[in-house]
């Protein structure tokens, strides 16, 4: 009797297995099914900085201007803009068709209220530091906004292209609902959000940017990227974000899948701490720079996915890395520099975060073996991201393997670390008069050609002083079914290109 019972149970289980394996879920033809492993962490466009949050919010909100795929500034809510002769006012004309998803027109009052919120310290907006030159904002008529600046600020316009400078409705600011409702003027409306599980977006019928060829996006959070790949392979996901280069390299093996890779603006870097001995010695830092084989790190730790870079990662300003100080590994020169410095090898600890980026510990290991060649004994301290961030912010490390965020303009990218009043000076522990002065010149110069010259000098000087050892950019990956067409990747990682996508069969 007992045997019979368990046999029936077996049979039942087997049947259940077969039945579910045969289940084909009906495809929701008009929705783009997207997957990512890290969910957004919040909905306040002014406060959020996490990669996924920005990617989600870019689909819901719009800034005044945005970057196109070449990183040029193009219209979004504003249809045109103009700096005054003296560079002290910046005037925007708003697109009369721009509407929030509830149908209300986006007015200059909304823009004014949004920037005032961004500048209010109580908002806790990390991007606030990019907008400090704004002295006051005028809204002479509903379609015109005038920013009055305390000093010329060429990168301001670029900073305004970030979703951190999104325009939110003045009434949502007034009733305190910005963080909870996500009422924007972007291409999609957020219908529902279960954090760490899924998002449902539908097309915003009021969007001024044109028609979208499908009805909405369903975003699923699949925490394991191998599972994302499996889901794509099985045709259950149309489009996915991939972080792990190892998973990305597997995508092209699949006949029905396509990998989109674009070098991102973020950079992998070995941060030295020049406030600690012997990294306070210029020759020691230069020796480290010469001892490092950047291409080797890229090939081994990042499985060749990305490219060697100097401090400036944006194509418009980046120099050819081979022109920078010691970008070819030169062990002899490194040893000579160490000898000149009178340092006969030393031990140091390098901090790295587990899983953020996924390649951090691999990078640390390759660096460990490369630096061993000139007598530097690296001890790797791997720690959870939050712990790492605390240590990093306090500048409490000898060296740190980091993946630091990039910007489309050099000034906001580095003023925080390397100007004398930079608010992350504690992290870099490094100042230099010439670097400081070059950054200030770059800030006020509006002539593009002159700016390029200034920042090339900045980049050359910075790599020669070697407070940090810039290594490589990582690729930003998306993977998709080949039936999907029209997606354009961008170095900023934005998914705005999804608005041009068509779903095939």
């Amino acid at each position, binding site marked *: 009797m007992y*045997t019979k019972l*368990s046999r029936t*149970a*077996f049979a039942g*289980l087997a049947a*259940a297995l077969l*039945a*579910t*394996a045969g*289940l084909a*879920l009906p495809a929701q033809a008009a929705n783009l099914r997207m*997957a990512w492993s890290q969910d957004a*962490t*919040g909905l306040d466009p002014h406060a*959020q*900085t*996490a990669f996924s949050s920005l990617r989600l919010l870019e689909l819901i909100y719009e800034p005044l201007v945005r970057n196109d795929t070449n990183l040029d500034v193009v219209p979004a809510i504003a249809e045109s803009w103009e700096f005054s002769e003296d560079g002290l006012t910046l005037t925007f004309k708003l697109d009369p068709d721009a509407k929030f998803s509830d149908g209300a027109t986006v007015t200059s009052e909304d823009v004014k209220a949004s920037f005032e919120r961004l500048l209010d*310290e*109580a*908002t*806790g*907006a*990390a*991007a*606030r530091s990019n907008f400090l030159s704004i002295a006051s904002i005028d809204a002479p008529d509903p379609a015109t906004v005038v920013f009055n600046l305390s000093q010329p600020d060429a990168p301001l316009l670029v900073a305004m292209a970030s979703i951190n400078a999104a325009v939110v409705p003045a009434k949502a600011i007034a009733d305190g609902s910005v963080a909870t409702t996500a009422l924007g003027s972007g291409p999609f409306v957020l219908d529902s959000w*279960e*954090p*760490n*599980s*899924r998002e449902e977006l539908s097309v915003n019928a009021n969007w001024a940017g044109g028609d979208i060829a499908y009805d909405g996006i*369903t975003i*699923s*959070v*699949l*925490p*394991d990227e*191998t*599972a994302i790949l*499996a*889901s794509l*392979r*099985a*045709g*259950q996901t149309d489009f996915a974000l991939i972080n792990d280069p190892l998973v990305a390299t597997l995508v092209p093996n699949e006949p029905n899948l396509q990998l989109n890779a674009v070098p991102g603006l973020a950079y992998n870097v070995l941060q030295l701490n020049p406030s600690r001995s012997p990294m306070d010695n210029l020759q020691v830092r230069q020796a480290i720079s010469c001892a490092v084989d950047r291409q080797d790190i890229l090939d081994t730790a990042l499985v060749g996915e990305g490219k060697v870079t100097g401090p400036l990662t944006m194509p418009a300003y980046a120099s050819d890395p081979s022109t920078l100080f010691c970008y070819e590994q030169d062990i002899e020169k490194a040893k000579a520099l160490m000898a000149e410095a009178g340092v006969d090898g030393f031990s140091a600890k390098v901090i790295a975060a587990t899983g953020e980026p996924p390649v951090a510990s691999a990078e640390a290991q390759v660096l460990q073996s490369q630096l061993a060649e000139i007598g530097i004994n690296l001890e790797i301290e791997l720690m*959870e991201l*939050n*712990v790492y*961030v*605390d*240590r*990093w*912010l306090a500048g409490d490390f000898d060296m740190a393997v*980091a993946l*630091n*965020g990039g910007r489309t303009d050099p000034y906001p990218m580095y003023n*925080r670390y390397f100007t004398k009043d930079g*608010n*992350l000076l*504690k*992290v870099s522990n490094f100042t230099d008069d010439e670097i400081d002065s070059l950054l200030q010149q770059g800030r006020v110069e509006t002539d593009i050609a002159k700016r390029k010259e200034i920042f090339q000098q900045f980049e050359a000087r910075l790599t020669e002083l070697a407070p940090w050892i810039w290594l490589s950019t990582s690729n930003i990956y998306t993977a998709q079914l080949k039936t999907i067409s029209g997606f354009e990747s961008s170095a900023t990682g934005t998914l705005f290109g999804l608005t041009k996508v068509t779903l095939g069969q």
Partner: protein
Amino acid sequence: MNYLARRLVTFPLILLGVSLLVFFSIRMIPGDAITAMLGTEAGLLTPVQRQALAEYFGIDQPAVVQYGRWLWGVLQGDLGLSVTYGRPVLAIILERFPLTLELALLSMVIALSVGVPAGVLAATRGERPADVVVRILAMLGQSTPGFVVGLVIIYVLSVYFGFIPAMGSFASLWSDPLANLGQLIFPAVTLGFAFAASVTRISRASMLDVLSDDYIRTARAKGVPARSVVWHHALPNALIPVVTLSGVEFGYLLGGAVIVEQIFALPGLGRLTLDAIGQRDYALVQGCVLFIALNFLIVNLLVDLAYAALDPRIRLGAR
């Protein structure tokens, strides 16, 4: 009954201890909700900005004050608000719990319906091929980590069958039982595999032990059929260690199966807790841990009660 009452009285005390431990230990790990949200960008905040955010996240007061506030809420049935979800912690946990419970039950059904018969089979076939095969499989099951089994299942299904259980959007048992089973069966097999292996080993060992007892020899001498000796006379007594094991294992499963939930993208308690720790969502971590502890207490109580049912010689509460 007296025993039951005595056990129930200890529950609040244990839970209080657990809450103290989790409350202060999570605050001892570096980082807070602000660095969890902003990462390295948190360094760009001015002190005023930081203070404003600390107020928003409710972490501006000293920990002791926070604990008092929180405990007062708990006594009134309010586990607090999750900063990630902006909703009451209890509501979120109760939303996630059915899945975790279902997965735990399903894994247990698989483990027991495979493990116990396999263990009995091995015990009655001492050292013959069937025994050896079962023992090898059990060893394999116990020593293969769950994530390997899970990934292999996903790989095999997606590469050879072009199918994987729908992930991300979870169908509840009530709304769509078939889709629900489709999503849970493979995770349950993954969890059940290791669980079944332990059950097999324990039931085999325990069965061998019981089969050498005098009363079994007596039963055999009196001519009771071999099958009846095994299933009716020996098995009930051999089950006690299996019940203990299952109780402990079930308790763990009710705490959520973090890795399997992660791989199969199931919104269960394990992932909820893990994500909450990562995001330093203190109220949610506290709520989850408290809830998991309560589950453990209840399961343990049930296990004790089951002993008495299986073996009348065990009198609960006897000193």
